């Protein structure tokens, strides 16, 4: 089957070109096709952007074990509705993804849905207990693309060191949720002005930074690739800049909420703004935006963390950390383009090209002949209210529910198949 994407602005990591994309089966056959090329299906993109399907290196799909929050199918639906065609789910499922059986279960379930590709991140230690290494070789063979104890950061520098060393042997890498739990204590929001005002216990930025520093040094020690999760503070970014300038094998990611919202959101005690790391101060947001502008930050990820409404409808201290993000990544990231922080090629680098390289998936991340036809047709001008009818996740824990958003995927194409179409009315 052939599909022609007619009249689009094709965005790649280095340039934007106008043209028509011809897809043959699962593969991009041409990016210079004629507008009236014969095809089984023709989509007129009306001058909108065609971008490589977004690759989200950081999601929580709660499957297996906590399917009442999200499962792989609902998560995949939310992903494609946000232009995302590949995701990397974290290992904090029930049971923990610390063995090949769970890894393969996840991959197979996603394959049977056929909406997205799922590249699991395996646990770094057994049961995410921070003690014994998982069978990284076997899991890598089973399809795990990296290793992390996200949410339960490894306390022991020794364990982290050995995990990084061992993962690198199999061409894999470790992903660090950098947080010194002893410093975070019972904190629930950023330690700053708003924690002083609201009496909500604070988590200082240094809680992240001290661990980022350690993990950078572990990369230095081992030479292994260490990827720092969801960076949230100015200080973290400075450490990463230093690490990169020293030539250490360190990369990092940022979430849209961390570069968009500040601690001020917490003045209302809104549990849908409770996440870890917490929303920080304006200067941190400014620094993260600068990091996106100048390329110090490698990619944008969602940290999509669905929680049931009953779990968020609690006292602030008791509500779990995390917000959903798959359907808001696109509008919030495109807002950076609108503001002139980044251009469209940079957007593609941050959301697809760089992530693909990080997880060594050379078949994607670009709209080029021979690559997988994972494409999102994006309209940055489309305005809509993000409501329950649009929301595809099982959960609704996002501060953007009911809010007006700008920018969306009109079509999401996965391996040549249209898997999502924006409901126009």
């Amino acid at each position, binding site marked *: 089957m052939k599909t022609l994407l007619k009249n689009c602005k094709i965005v790649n990591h280095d340039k934007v070109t106008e043209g028509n994309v011809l897809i043959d089966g699962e593969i991009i056959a041409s990016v210079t096709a004629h507008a009236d090329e014969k095809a089984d299906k023709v989509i007129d993109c009306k001058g909108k952007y065609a971008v490589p399907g977004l690759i989200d290196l950081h999601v929580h799909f709660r499957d297996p074990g906590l399917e009442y929050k999200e499962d792989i199918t609902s998560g995949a639906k939310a992903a494609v509705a946000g232009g995302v065609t590949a995701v990397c789910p974290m290992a904090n499922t029930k049971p923990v993804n610390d063995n090949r059986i769970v890894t393969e279960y996840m991959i197979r379930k996603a394959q049977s849905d056929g909406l997205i590709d799922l590249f699991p991140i395996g646990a770094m230690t057994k049961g995410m207990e921070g003690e014994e290494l998982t069978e990284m070789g076997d899991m890598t063979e089973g399809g795990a693309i990296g290793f992390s104890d996200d949410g339960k950061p490894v306390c022991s520098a020794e364990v982290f060191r050995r995990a990084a060393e061992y993962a690198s042997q199999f061409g894999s890498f470790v992903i660090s949720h950098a947080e010194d739990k002893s410093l975070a204590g019972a904190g629930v929001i950023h*330690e*700053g*002005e708003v*924690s*002083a*005002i*609201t*009496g*909500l*216990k*604070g988590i*200082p930025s240094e809680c992240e930074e001290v661990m980022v520093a350690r993990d950078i040094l572990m990369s230095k020690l081992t030479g292994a690739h260490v990827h720092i999760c969801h960076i949230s503070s100015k200080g973290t970014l400075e450490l990463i800049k230093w690490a990169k300038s020293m030539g250490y094998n360190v990369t990092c990611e940022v979430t849209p909420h961390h570069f968009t919202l500040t601690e001020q959101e917490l003045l209302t*005690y809104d549990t849908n703004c409770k996440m870890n790391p917490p929303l920080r101060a304006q200067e941190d947001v400014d620094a993260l935006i600068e990091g996106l502008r100048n390329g110090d930050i490698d990619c944008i990820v969602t940290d999509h963390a669905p929680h049931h409404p*009953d779990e968020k*409808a*609690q*006292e*602030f*201290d*008791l509500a779990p950390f995390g917000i959903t993000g798959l359907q808001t990544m696109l509008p919030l990231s495109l807002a950076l383009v609108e503001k002139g922080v980044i251009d469209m090629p940079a957007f593609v680098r941050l959301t697809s090209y760089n992530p693909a390289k990080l997880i060594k998936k050379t078949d994607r991340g670009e709209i080029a002949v021979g690559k997988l036809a994972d494409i999102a047709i994006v309209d940055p001008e489309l305005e809509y209210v993000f409501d329950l009818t649009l929301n595809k996740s099982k959960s609704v824990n996002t501060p953007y529910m009911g809010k007006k958003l700008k920018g969306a995927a009109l079509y999401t194409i996965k391996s040549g198949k249209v898997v999502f179409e924006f409901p126009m009315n």
Partner: protein
Amino acid sequence: MAYKRKDLLGMKDLTKEEILYLLETAQKFTEINERDVKKVPTLKGKTVINLFFEPSTRTRTSFEIAGKRLSADTINFTASSSSTTKGETLIDTVKNMEAMKSDIFVVRHSYSGAVKYIAEHTDAKIINAGDGLNEHPTQALLDMLTIRQSKGRLEGIEVAIIGDITHSRVARSDVWAMTKLGVNVRLFGPTTMIPKHSQVFGCRVCKSMNEAVEGADVIIMLRIQRERQGKLLIPSTKEYAKYFGLTKDKLALAKPDALVMHPGPINRGVELMSNVADGDNSGVLKQVTNGVAVRMAALYILGIGNNKGGIDENAS
């Protein structure tokens, strides 16, 4: 002057006028507490539930007395903050109480923001009797009432608040309210107990006990919550008493007629020495007395206010 809100959640969001109205009303209620028959029929038929998710004896008793003196039916409901672990959510608990046709909830909770959260989910009127580290509005009102009775005014009064500022809802409520009414507030405590971003309070943060006390009209000593902090924030109560406690010698640096206050219960010999707590400058028991009047005022204002119907101007 009026107070048109459904709830009394904190001092931070109130206007100066609202705070003054509460204070004026409370002042009027002090008279009732001096009578032989300490009861008025004002809230007859209203049900006030003291919903305490955190142990408290004095605040709950004060509210209970206040409710009874206004002829309301007051019921105490003590629940564990961890009742959610038993399966019932906070809101379910509140909705159940509301379904019994309760008019006012006086709520104490160990988590900041929890009382506001309840207020947003019920039509009943809510009085915050202390939420986590956030606010304790009736304490701020009784503090200000006591200061005003003692000093005749609030504007320009020098108030030192000393102790664990970070973990004190009393300090927060006092700061928000007093700064609105023109009180000059200064803060002092161990560095481990002063928020890093204390500039949001708009108060002077002192470097030493002497600086904090010097020239003060009022000294509010906060209770050290030993059971809450463990030993991490201060090495010992002995050391705390030495550097942060109010002794007679330290008090001598304040104005001669300085008023010493404490939200209670006092750790004698720790933050407040006995000869100061029991001395001529102590307003501690006056605070307790005023507490009842303040809580009567709060219950009265919320209890009668339903903003319906017109006044019969000639209701003689």
